[in-house]
């Protein structure tokens, strides 16, 4: 591999890693911080992608679609927490597994009933549709770089929210002892509802943003589900930076795995996860 190729692969790895972070960001919040095992994360991602498709077709503009989609998914998240999740906090965590599995099936079928089972594409907005020439044969789409930039902004915002705002402290406190948080006069139920909605919105937002490059198809949610959990867990549950670092590591492992050991490329991510967790049984950035 010559140097240019290597550098481009490195760029690929970083870009993929950032994309993974984007997709996993909502899970970092709902699972990592709030401690809810949410298998339906992929469904929210899919929901977002389909919203991007449907709303872009309707409005003709991806950005307008994203704004509408954000409002819609926040509402859905709010209602789900209110109607379902909030009633399970006192129960065994595995009940959440069951609930969210049921939701996957329900969402997938609702999608099928409303939009059908076809594969769809979403156009990249005109202003971002250019490409940058990297080598004589290869160029890089601006939209991907735009996505990466959004991911970085998102990571910083999330880190700030979780680590440096009182709201962030309350959310984290809520995951360890809700009763005590209440005793401090904090309406943790409402906070959880809002944060859950935010998590759902992030997942959907990821789907909307990724729709133009990933296309929109049935079952797309299930495909990202496992990798999202891998990102959150390798990073250390509850750590935003951890998730970012983990996502980048996975990006590297996956990209160079495909190049260096193509026959075992499917294994690399799991090898990485097993290795990391055996080395650090609580993820890279174990939180206090």
């Amino acid at each position: 591999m010559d140097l240019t190729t290597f550098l481009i692969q490195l760029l690929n790895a970083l870009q993929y890693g950032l994309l993974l972070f984007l997709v996993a960001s909502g899970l970092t919040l709902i699972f990592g911080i709030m401690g809810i095992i949410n298998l339906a994360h992929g469904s929210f991602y899919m929901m977002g992608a389909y919203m991007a498709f449907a709303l872009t077709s309707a409005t003709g503009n991806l950005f307008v679609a994203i704004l509408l989609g954000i409002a819609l998914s926040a509402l859905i998240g709010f209602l789900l927490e209110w109607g379902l999740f909030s009633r399970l906090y006192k129960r065994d965590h595995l009940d959440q597994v069951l609930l969210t599995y049921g939701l996957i099936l329900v969402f997938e079928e609702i999608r099928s009933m409303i939009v059908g089972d076809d594969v769809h594409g979403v156009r990249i907005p005109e202003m971002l549709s250019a490409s940058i020439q990297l080598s004589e044969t290869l160029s890089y789409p601006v939209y991907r770089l735009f996505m990466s930039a959004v991911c970085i902004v998102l990571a910083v915002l999330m880190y700030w929210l979780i680590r440096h705002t009182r709201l962030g402290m309350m959310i984290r406190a809520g995951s360890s002892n809700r009763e005590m948080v209440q005793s401090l006069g904090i309406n943790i139920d409402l906070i959880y509802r809002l944060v859950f909605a935010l998590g759902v919105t992030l997942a959907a937002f990821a789907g909307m943003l990724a729709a133009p490059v990933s296309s929109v198809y049935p079952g797309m949610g299930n495909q990202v589900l496992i990798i999202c959990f891998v990102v959150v867990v390798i990073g250390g549950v509850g750590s935003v930076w951890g998730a970012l670092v983990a996502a980048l590591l996975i990006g590297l492992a996956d990209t160079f795995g495909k190049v260096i050991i193509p026959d075992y490329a499917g294994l690399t991510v799991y090898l990485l996860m097993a290795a990391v967790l055996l080395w650090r049984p609580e993820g890279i950035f174990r939180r206090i």
Partner: protein
Amino acid sequence: MSETLLEAEGLHSFYGSSHILHGIDFVVRRGETIGLMGRNGMGKTTLIRSMLGHVRPRHGRVAVRGKTMTGSAPYLIARKGIAYVPEGRGIFPNLSVRENLLMAAKPGIDGRRDWTYERVLETFPRLGERLTNGGGQLSGGEQQMLTIGRALMTNPDVLILDEATEGLAPLIAKEIWYIVRQIRATGIATIVIDKNHAAVTSISDRNVILVKGKVAFEGSSAELRAQPELLHKHLGAG
């Protein structure tokens, strides 16, 4: 008579089918220090939790500042200026010491800000040395200080200390009693549950002894000291 801050009337509470509180009347007025005593398992904690909304009483009434709030959400009751230091500590192990304190900070119901972050650290210098440590990494006594400090950060009108000196070294325990006396002067009421009866009666205005979920005695510290056999009978203390 000064304002009634917290009041329970004919309270009956259950855990599942076991009947724990059998018709308890209990009143906390402004600026009052009340000792709540009883052997292990007599229902002291249950009484507190019933008044704070963590346990929904099956019969009876809970009023906060004169307003009936039986079974209201705990955060609504807490917002009325009631702070709680639960037994067995309620620190957030995944938050740093600093965060444990800051997340709770709020002015009192009348806008008072007597207790600030700085003042809490002054009171418990030990905490100041451990600010970035996770709550879960503190020693037992340090956790206890943190819980008390955090409760004070909410600038309450009623402070409930459920075995708050458990695990505190004698010097610090004394510091706690000192604080209780001090804040009483500013009009803050305190409910103290503590195994050290001597210490409790030395600072309390009024004492309540629970036996099997019923009030077995209510009276001033002087009255209680005058009847040592009561202490012996209900608390097993010599």
